[in-house]
């Protein structure tokens, strides 16, 4: 009987995934239902399983939701989660993966922001027969490494969505404002924007999130230097928030879009200062790998069918911002 | 008799397991000069650092005018009127002459609660005090690090002389000085003594110590070899004790054996032997 419930859960999750890959943010409630159903499951099977999630995470808004997803899933499955963030330090990530293998982990989820550096270590895990999933970044590499599948969003596709959105807003020249330098994911967002956007795109690094006022000043200086920019896509939530004030300073009305979710960006979408944000629903990137690992270990399920499982893009706009807001306050979006 | 100005009783000092001083007792009266003599490593600097508050003794007691004191920092000693010229001079090379001169005791002007350094006075006094030492500083804004060794030493001495209210301690002040400046320092010491200061003068040159000293404490390997009043010892005895007769003899022999094939060394050894003889003679029959 219990096994049947687990299979039901698995099916439910697959349906969620399908929903995510196809469309907007209406699936959030479904994800929550998923969590709810796990509560009456007998957890004895997973009691002594330990899964490692080794990511390039920092302590920002985005990753805290991933972590929350992973924790919630671990609690629901009754497994132990080891969360190892590397703060964008590939070296540390490699060490953490090696440590996880040495500790005899039951399953591994790895983010591949630096595939060349981290890939070999991940591959070693897969070679050692440890179930491996890539999350967040690594959609191009997961197959080669022997990972079961990838859970994430492809940045280019997400950027494409933003491009279409700007087309519908009637923008002519969009500044793609990046908060990190040399981060391939952010560059791909801008690249995706360029592919579908009808006008011109300028892609610039505008300073890191640790210096919010500096970001604002840099965006406004870019606007002052180039009068034809009328749209700004922040490749992170904070950048979009900073862009609002920068546009006021530069005396311009711009359409502003962002990536990912934060309280601030939700409020500004609500007030109409920001048009949209591309949501990759990162809660799933934490939650799903744990569930998938659990199922692979306990039930030998392999999800995805050789294709990546996309968690986005979903869009938060004035239309759905109200509902999303409640979930953001709960820390799951 | 009133209590001595500065008195140390049974002072010992250990740096970890290194025993630098054992059981040293001496004193200085106001208007007197106590000389501390001894070879390198004898513990002279260690002793005066204790008196100056830069180090704390491991054992023993210190008295200022009969009152027992414990110096936690050089500031405590300075406040008691004890000023010190350290062997390493304690100057800050990148700072100007006047800033070094007044470091720690800057003259200030004030307006209400706001106080600032009176740079004009500081600069002038520094220049005047240096001039008294016969050193004509070009510009008190000059960084001390760019002064010559002797000039630098003069800055430290002039500073201590200016601030030493009761006791003036000098640790080998003449080591880097020319003949004239050495003379000036000795004259200074005598002047300070006449002004009623107690002076502690450290040197390994008995020829400098003898003319100015009233008491002589001789240190060897951290122990007192004797603490003499001037009338208890002769100049030559002092020189003999300082030189450590036995060691000098040994040195002479060593030189002789090493000089087998070296003319220069041989000459030197000969000179040494002569000097030794003369010393011994004089110590035995003081004139």
């Amino acid at each position: 009987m219990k096994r049947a419930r687990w299979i039901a859960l698995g099916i439910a999750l697959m349906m969620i995934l399908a929903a995510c890959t196809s469309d907007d943010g209406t699936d959030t409630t479904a994800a929550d239902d998923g969590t709810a159903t796990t509560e009456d499951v007998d957890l004895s099977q997973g009691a002594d399983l330990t899964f490692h999630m080794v990511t390039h995470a920092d302590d920002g808004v985005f990753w805290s939701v991933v972590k929350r997803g992973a924790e919630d899933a671990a609690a629901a499955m009754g497994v132990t989660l080891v969360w190892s963030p590397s703060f964008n330090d590939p070296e540390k990530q490699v060490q953490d993966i090696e440590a996880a293998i040495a500790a005899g982990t039951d399953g591994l989820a790895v983010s591949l922001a630096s595939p060349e550096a981290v890939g070999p270590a991940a591959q070693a895990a897969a070679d050692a027969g440890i179930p491996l999933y890539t999350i967040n970044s690594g959609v191009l590499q997961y197959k080669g490494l022997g990972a079961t599948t990838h859970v994430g969003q492809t940045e280019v596709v997400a950027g494409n969505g933003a491009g279409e959105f700007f087309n519908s807003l009637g923008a002519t020249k969009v500044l793609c404002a990046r908060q990190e330098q040399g981060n391939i994911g952010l560059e791909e967002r801008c690249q995706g924007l360029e592919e579908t956007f009808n006008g011109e795109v300028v892609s610039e690094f505008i300073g890191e999130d640790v210096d919010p006022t500096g970001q604002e000043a840099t965006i406004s200086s870019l606007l002052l230097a180039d009068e034809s920019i009328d749209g700004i896509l922040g490749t992170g939530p904070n950048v979009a928030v900073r862009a609002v004030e920068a546009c006021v300073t530069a005396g311009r009305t711009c359409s502003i879009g962002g990536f990912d979710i934060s309280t601030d960006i939700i409020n500004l979408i609500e007030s109409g200062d920001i048009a949209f944000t591309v949501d990759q629903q990162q809660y799933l990137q934490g939650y799903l790998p744990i569930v998938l690992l659990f199922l692979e270990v306990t039930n030998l399920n392999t999800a995805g069918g050789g294709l990546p499982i996309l968690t986005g893009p979903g869009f938060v706009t004035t239309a759905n911002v109200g509902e999303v807001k409640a979930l953001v306050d709960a820390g799951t979006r | 008799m009133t209590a001595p100005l500065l008195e140390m009783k049974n002072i010992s000092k250990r740096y970890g397991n290194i025993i630098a001083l054992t059981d040293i007792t001496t004193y200085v009266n106001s208007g007197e000069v106590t000389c501390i003599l001894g070879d390198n490593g004898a513990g002279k600097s260690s002793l005066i650092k204790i008196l100056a508050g830069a180090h704390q003794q491991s054992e023993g007691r210190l008295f200022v005018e009969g009152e027992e004191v414990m110096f936690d920092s050089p500031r405590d000693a300075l406040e008691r009127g004890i000023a010190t010229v350290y062997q390493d001079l304690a100057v800050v090379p990148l700072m100007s002459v006047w800033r070094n001169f007044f470091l720690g005791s800057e003259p200030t002007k004030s307006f209400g609660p706001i106080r600032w350094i009176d740079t004009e006075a500081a600069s002038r006094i520094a220049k005047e005090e240096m001039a008294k030492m016969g050193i004509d500083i070009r510009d008190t804004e000059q960084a001390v690090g760019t002064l010559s060794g002797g000039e630098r030493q003069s800055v430290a001495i002039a500073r201590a002389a200016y601030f030493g209210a009761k006791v003036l301690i000098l640790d080998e002040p003449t080591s880097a000085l020319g003949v004239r400046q050495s003379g000036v320092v000795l004259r200074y010491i005598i002047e300070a003594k006449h002004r009623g200061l107690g002076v502690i003068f450290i040197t390994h040159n008995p020829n400098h110590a003898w003319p100015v000293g009233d008491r002589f404490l001789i240190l060897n390997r951290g122990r007192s070899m004797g603490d003499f009043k001037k009338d208890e010892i002769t100049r030559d005895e002092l020189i003999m004790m300082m030189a450590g007769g036995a060691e000098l003899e040994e040195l002479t022999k060593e030189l002789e054996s090493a000089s087998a094939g070296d003319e220069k060394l041989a000459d030197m050894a000969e000179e040494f032997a002569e000097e030794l003889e003369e010393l011994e003679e004089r110590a035995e029959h003081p004139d």
Partner: protein
Amino acid sequence: MSATESPPLENAALEEAAYGDERLAYRGPLLRLLTRPEIGALLGAAVIWVYFWLVSDVFGQAAGAANYLDVAATLGIMAVAVSLLMIGGEFDLSAGAMTGATGMLVILLVIPPGEFGGAGLSLWVAIPLTLAFALGVGWFNGTVVEKTGLLSFIVTLSTFFILIGAKLGFAKLFTAKVIVEGLDEGSGYDFWVKIFGAKWTRNDHIFDGRDTLFGFLMVIGFAAVFFGMLELSHTRRERFNATGLIVAAAGIAGALYGVWGLRHGFGFVVGASTDTVGSNWLYAAALALGVIVAAVGIGVWRFERVSDRGSFSLSGTSLRNIAIALGVILFGSFVAITLDSSSEDIVGFMLTVQGLRAIVFGFGAIVGVTLPVLVARKEGKRSPITKFVVMTGTSLVIVGLAFLIQSEATSRKFRAEVFAVLLLIALIFFVAGLMPLLFQGREAAHPAADRLGKMLAALGIGLFLGAVTIRLLYMTSEEAAATQAVFNYRISILWFIVFAVAASLVLMRTKFGNWTFAVGGNKKAAREVGVPAARTKTILFMTVSVAAFLVGMLLAFRLNSVQANVGNGQEFLYIIAAVVGGNLLSGGYGSAAGGALGALIMAMSFQGIPFAGWNSDWRFLFVGVILLLAVLVNNFVRKKAEEAE
């Protein structure tokens, strides 16, 4: 900040004591200026400003200033504090994380209690508590460093990790998010937002007489600096000659007439500008002639006539240098004329035809002007006539360059503004060559003249600053109508200035400042002469935390929310700014003003890149080059300064 120090001396003997020493080579005003630690940074800031002013339209305007000052302010507050600590021989790697920590703490203290809430305190309680926390962290850093004798690098690195962990942990514990927000819910917000969150919106401050006042102050300021320099460099007459005064008055009248006439043509001074020549030439000539006549008049009035003009002669090296200068300048001009000004074709890595042309010409111009000035300086010691000839030649070359730029440049800025500036520089060079030919240069200090000269120079610089400030703060109604952008100056700029000035005064003029230099330069020595070294260092650490507190408040009141990672890693920028500003990494040497200037340089570089339209990918390359140059220049200047002693 402390360039003017000359309270009255009591009597002639003292003056003699303070000044007269035949072994001390007399150092002229420029050389004395060069020995200040922040001079490299000042020059650097000027060069970078000029550079971005040249390559971007907006950077040199109020919009640009508002932009980079905004960045410079918070960076600068920290850089000044970090400079003090660095002079005191220590580092604080927790400084960056502290800015975010104090900002977060104050918000956590005021947001209402609840399941996910804070302490619900009034800001009147929360702000002092946060300050106490900051002081506590500084005290902790200082005390641990002093008590253990460990490197501050290691100790504050631990504090850094503790802080970033605590920030994240507490944010999540209390609000379940990594961002805390809602400062405006605290009681007392209306008052405190004026202290930490106020801003001056330029658009709301209209002052139509602005440009007239600006021009007026600039002219007086220029005159004051000019006369000040004359006082500082020439020997006074025994008795002043009144006829000179009449000549000077006539000259000044002529110059003023010129300025008045140029009011609308002289873009550099009054902002408005035109490309037209014609009657403007008449006014320009009146101005130039007036300045020369006034200078000569003042010379006749106050200064000794020159006794020995020497004869014209150039040494072999000088001749060679001048030949090189002429060569490069001709080559640069030739390239500028030949290459197409509007071609944006790429000739090589990152370099367009335009860029190549600008670089070759700019290099030629700079070398072509610098070398002759150095020659004039060297030869002028012996022979004023040689100096005069070389300087006049240089000034003619500059005039030539000005016209070349005017005819070849495509942008209005170059044709009008740069043109006017170059002509002005040519005039200054000419006068600088002429005066030593007529009047005796000073070879010894003269306290009264030095005092007057310094006072005038300081007054002039004060007037310049005042004039610029007025231009930055006010708009004319025309401008207000034409502009859409909103220029905000945040109160952080004011805090920055207050903090930098206070730190400078404390450092240069108080016991504590003296002790700071001492503990950084030689801590053992400082302690031995009675400086409370441990206390001094602890207070320095606390100063840095208080600065971080200030920046944290500015941040929190501006954004109303603070994310847990804000400020992390910024400490390296503070340290870089301090080093760029001429502070010695190993302690014992530097200035607070240097730290402030370093921050300004960093801010101008960061913000200048987007203004100039460069790809931001090169941002750190640029910063690296600036850092390297700054360190080299500082090192060079310090060595020169020490040699000159």
